[in-house]
């Protein structure tokens, strides 16, 4: 995404006008970007469908176990429609997806979409809290580092960010549990176990450690990003112009630079969705939080493929939609971006 801005838009520059109809650049950007997303989601379904059929012996072997005899496997395959030709199966798979049917769990006797619908809001709540906390910390940190670059505080924060990034979240979570739950007994070692979102928010003490664990690595990444973005903007002509006009340095940073940097932070947030969900698997399993990450982990251990693949699909679609929204937001905010679409 960021790197593509460097790519010469020359090849596409006259595209909006080639059809004879003048399409406004932003609308053209919208159309192209949405079409791209549709293609990407198509490839995602292909990958997920491919994964299902990459299972040795097919899904039947996984679900019925090693002792299953060929007759049982054939019966299972017939019942699930796995004995039909692959293109037909793929078509049926797409047809089910369009109707919101992600299949049935092999082990939990529930529909996958129902399970995900139950768990997803909890994961979004916990990850949302961590990400929001990370943003609130990272933006001022990154700006401060950029303004005071190559001085002691910058080096200290940079060092801290490197360590935070390199610390696996399960290691950090464990240390936090040891110190704050075991030794100091300030916070409980488990995340809130309530099923409703209100119930989870009603137990803020239990939220502290899981949120903190999720925040650490994210702050590290975000603050590095804000720092380099502010540094780039500090070198821009408009910054020099603002300074030449006599605008106070504080105002240059707070108004002119921050506004430009925040648009790129928003884009990054859109692209950060897969990372957030990966973190959720680990954090939810350490703190025993009944979200989608824990659901995925448990299904991976019981080889419950419909759930695994359903979760993968939901996350992939969320990522594609997230990056689409991020790009559209940035295109609305920054006219230079509109020309850069491939």
């Amino acid at each position, binding site marked *: 995404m960021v790197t593509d801005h460097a790519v*010469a838009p020359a090849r596409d520059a006259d595209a909006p006008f080639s059809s004879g109809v003048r399409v406004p650049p932003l609308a053209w950007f919208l159309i192209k970007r949405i079409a791209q997303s549709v293609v990407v989601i198509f*490839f995602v379904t292909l*990958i997920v469908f491919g994964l299902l059929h990459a*299972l040795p012996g097919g899904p039947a072997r996984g679900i019925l176990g090693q002792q299953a005899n060929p007759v049982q496997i054939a019966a299972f395959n017939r019942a699930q429609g796995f004995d039909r030709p692959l293109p037909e199966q793929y078509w049926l798979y797409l047809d089910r997806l369009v109707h919101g049917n992600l299949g049935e769990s092999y082990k939990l006797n529930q529909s996958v979409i129902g399970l995900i619908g139950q768990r997803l809001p909890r994961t979004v709540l916990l990850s949302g809290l961590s990400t929001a906390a990370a943003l609130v910390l990272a933006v001022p940190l990154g700006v401060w580092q950029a303004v005071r670059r190559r001085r002691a505080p910058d080096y200290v924060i940079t060092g801290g960010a490197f360590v935070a990034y*390199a610390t696996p979240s399960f*290691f950090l979570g464990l240390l936090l549990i040891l110190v704050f739950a075991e030794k100091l007994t300030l916070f409980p070692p488990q995340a809130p176990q309530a099923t409703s979102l209100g119930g989870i928010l009603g137990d803020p003490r239990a939220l502290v450690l899981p949120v903190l664990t999720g925040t650490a690595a994210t702050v590290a990444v975000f603050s590095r990003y804000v720092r380099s973005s502010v540094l780039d903007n500090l070198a821009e002509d408009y910054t020099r112009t603002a300074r030449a006009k006599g605008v106070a340095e504080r105002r240059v940073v707070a108004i002119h630079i921050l506004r430009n940097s925040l648009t790129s932070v928003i884009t990054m947030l859109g692209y950060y969705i897969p990372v957030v969900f990966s973190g959720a698997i680990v954090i939810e399993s350490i703190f025993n939080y009944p979200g989608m990450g824990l659901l995925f982990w448990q299904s*991976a251990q019981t080889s419950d493929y419909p759930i695994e693949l359903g979760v*993968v699909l939901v996350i992939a679609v969320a990522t594609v939609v997230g990056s689409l929204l991020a790009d559209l937001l940035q295109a609305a905010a920054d006219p230079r971006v509109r020309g850069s679409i491939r």
Partner: protein
Amino acid sequence: MTAGAGLVAEEVIASAAAPGPYRRLVRQFLRNPMAIAGLATLAVLVIFCFCGPLLYHTDQIHVHLSRENLVPGAGHPLGTDDVGHDILGRLMYGGQTSLEIGIAAGIVATVIGMLWGAVAGYAGGWLDALMMRVVDAGIAIPGLFLLMVAATIITPKVPVLIVIIGVCSWLVPARLVRAEAMSLRGREFVQAMIAIGGGRRRAIFRHILPNVVGTVVVNVTFQVADAILLVAYLSFLGLGVPLPGTDWGGMLSNGINYTYAGYWWMILPPGLAIVIVVCACNFIGDGLRDAFEVRLQNR
């Protein structure tokens, strides 16, 4: 004759004053204290893991129930784990796995990404669009999820882990290399080669790839760091190298069972080892990136 000698002398002076691009790169890299520290740390860790067992003999295969969970002390500087393996020895043994997988998977990922990106960026048009949508789709599926699905399908031995981690993480280098290949395609030396009848393969292998070396080398170090973390996560989630093999992540997740017993020596050494090696790789990567940028600016 004197003029000729003067010319030669001038050339000698010029070549001494302006060293080759790679020597300048090395010099720039060596000026960065963080990068040196990273390189030294990585070297020490590699020697520790691969040469350490030659001096410090431990049994990492058999179970010794008579010496399980020993506190660090004489005979076992870092104590023993729940089945009596010496932790210091295990740190070397598990480190071999972590480093082997990390480095090999990082290289596999970068090579795949480099080739994919170079072809897409050079080809342009619909092929490029198609290839990059595949990359977008891959990026939309987080690597950890793919790996966990893969690990439930296949028994995760070391070579298998290298291949699947590599196959799951080539997408970012593909994007980086594609962007560079696109801009290189328009440059005079590539256009000149096409004009005198050079083929596509020659353009990609002789002109595009050598010029993306900077991006690729920097990316490898970050890929290695991420691959080491990924293996650790997989092991923590119970899908890593099977016993009696282990890696730092596996040691750490094994130690987690004894957190509440206070057996810190089973948690801190592997945890710190992961943090240190990942930091070292990232420092090296940052140093290399700065060195390449300076080199480009000086051109």
